[in-house]
């Protein structure tokens, strides 16, 4: 019910190019997440898919139909925004039914679809309230409900959890995952949070400086990273959890600068001569004195990634 093809999409604002030849295929029912640092073009790409921004070149197809010249409302998409973007003067129910009303959907069908969506998201008690009377988490649920009501081919999420506090973020993340399971809808999600990307996605699209750097499933990306970002020199990289510490010998020496106790994990920061500040993540509670010297080694050589001058991985 909702596939997406992006072919050779470019975008420039005046002379600054923000997207360079983007090609991407999203299958029906897939959950795809765009990750990357801010300014990498992921939000712009999402807005181009939504039709809120015109591409400078290339084409977008939804379900095989070219939609470059189709207005947002006719593309069969729904979007959830970081700032919720609820209509402040309308009740929750009117917020959810606004899109269908605009499209001239029959009254009974609107009622049915709003009832269905509010049941799914447990919004029934709030239908008569205005957005100002809701908490942040409830507002974002209403915004998700507004998207669900439209029964779109494509759900677009623009950093939907960024404005929520940590507890609500986890809760809403689970709700979105459940929604994806229940609706089996195609979802495209933009975030800079790696945890969201790893936990929600079927497929992660890593973007940097207006280009797609890597596409793959979460574990593929974790185990075979392809790029580090431009470093300008040959570099090696090891994930913090793949390092071990020893008191009496190892590959590199380092002085303990700071220790973070997270309960389940302990992060140790060491100043090394070989690589500057190195983070080591240890499981459980571990105590080291700041200022003491320890030895760092990789737990296995296959966890060492080598990158060339351009930041690309060497195999």
């Amino acid at each position, binding site marked *: 019910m909702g596939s997406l093809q992006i072919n050779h999409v470019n975008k420039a604002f005046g002379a600054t190019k923000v997207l360079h030849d983007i090609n991407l295929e999203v299958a029906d029912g897939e959950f795809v997440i765009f990750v990357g640092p801010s300014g990498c073009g992921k939000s712009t790409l999402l807005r181009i898919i939504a039709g809120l921004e015109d591409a400078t070149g290339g084409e977008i197809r939804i379900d095989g139909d070219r939609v470059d010249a189709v207005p947002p*409302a006719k593309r069969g998409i729904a979007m959830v925004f970081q700032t919720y973007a609820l209509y402040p003067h309308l009740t929750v129910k009117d917020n959810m039914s606004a899109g269908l009303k605009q499209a001239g959907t029959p009254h009974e069908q609107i009622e049915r679809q709003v009832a269905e969506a509010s049941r799914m998201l447990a919004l029934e008690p709030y239908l008569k309230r205005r957005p*100002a009377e809701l*908490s942040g988490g409830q507002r974002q649920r209403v915004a998700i409900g507004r998207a669900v009501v439209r029964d779109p081919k494509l759900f677009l999420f623009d950093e939907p959890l960024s404005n929520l506090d940590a507890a609500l973020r986890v809760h809403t993340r689970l709700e979105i995952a459940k929604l994806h399971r229940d609706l089996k809808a195609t979802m495209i999600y933009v975030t800079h949070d790696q945890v969201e990307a790893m936990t929600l996605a079927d497929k992660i699209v890593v973007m940097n400086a207006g280009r797609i750097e890597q596409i793959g499933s979460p574990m593929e990306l974790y185990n075979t990273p392809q790029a580090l970002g431009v470093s300008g020199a040959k570099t090696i990289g090891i994930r913090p959890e793949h390092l071990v510490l020893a008191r009496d010998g190892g590959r590199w020496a380092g002085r303990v600068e700071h220790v973070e106790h997270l309960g389940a994990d302990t992060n140790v920061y060491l100043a090394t001569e070989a690589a500057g500040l190195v983070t080591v993540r240890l499981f459980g509670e571990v105590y080291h004195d700041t200022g003491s010297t320890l030895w760092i080694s990789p737990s296995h050589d296959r966890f060492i990634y080598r990158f060339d001058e351009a930041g690309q991985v060497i195999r």
Partner: protein
Amino acid sequence: MGPGLRRGDTERGESTMSKATYSPGRAIAAHAVLIAYTVVALFPVFVIIINSFKSRKAIFGSPLSLPFGDAFSLVGYETVFKRGDFLLYFQNSLVVTVAALFFVLLFGAMAAFALSEYRFRGNTLTGLYLALGIMIPIRLGTVAILQLMVASGLANTLWALILVYTAQGLPLSIFILSEFMRTVSDDLKNAGRIDGMNEYKIFFRLVLPLVRPAMATVAVFTMIPIWNDLWFPLILAPSEATKTVTLGAQMFIGQFQTDWNGVLSALALAIVPVLVLYLIFSRQLIRGITSGAVK
């Protein structure tokens, strides 16, 4: 009510608490300054009103005494209603003010929306051009405006005044409103676009309600100079049928003798409609501020 709602409430509560760094000394000082200013500002109005209820002798004998006993007289109001058609003058003033206000707010808000919302070549230049009118007084163009109105057959019509006042009010309203419209969330407008609203609906249904406090401010700033203006009614529409209140009150001021009872009564009456309009807008203004926390 879920725990989420309560959390939101305390957050809001804390933020207002932290803002209110209350100190009685500072509050008294601030109030003293404000009260002093209010007294100074209202004193002339007060003098006009009390003297409009007094006889000519009492006005000159003791201008600051209250209109009681012998001093009390309604002769001023009698003259106002006997001489000249003051009801018509009021009507003209109201029509001109309300119509000009309507056009200033409508076109000002529309231009401001275009300037703040759309990226197009010459956007900044257009904005500057439209704001230029704030610095150049429209009266400099009086002769040209008069020629224009005569040529187009609009002299001695209310339309002449409405058009001139609309032009006069637009620069400031565009300037203020475009600043405010930049603060309206892009996400909200985009949500409207995805829900199938066209640009007019987005403007009227989403953006205008959110900039209502700014609209009320602009309305007040626009309305008062129009209501009080004597220059353009005198030049563009001095005929009996198109006289405004300020122009009508001038007939009591003569070269050799001035009917102060008539002038003061006409002015006292002229305050009323503009006061009513102001009250309407200021209520909007307050409502706008209190409902501004929605976002």
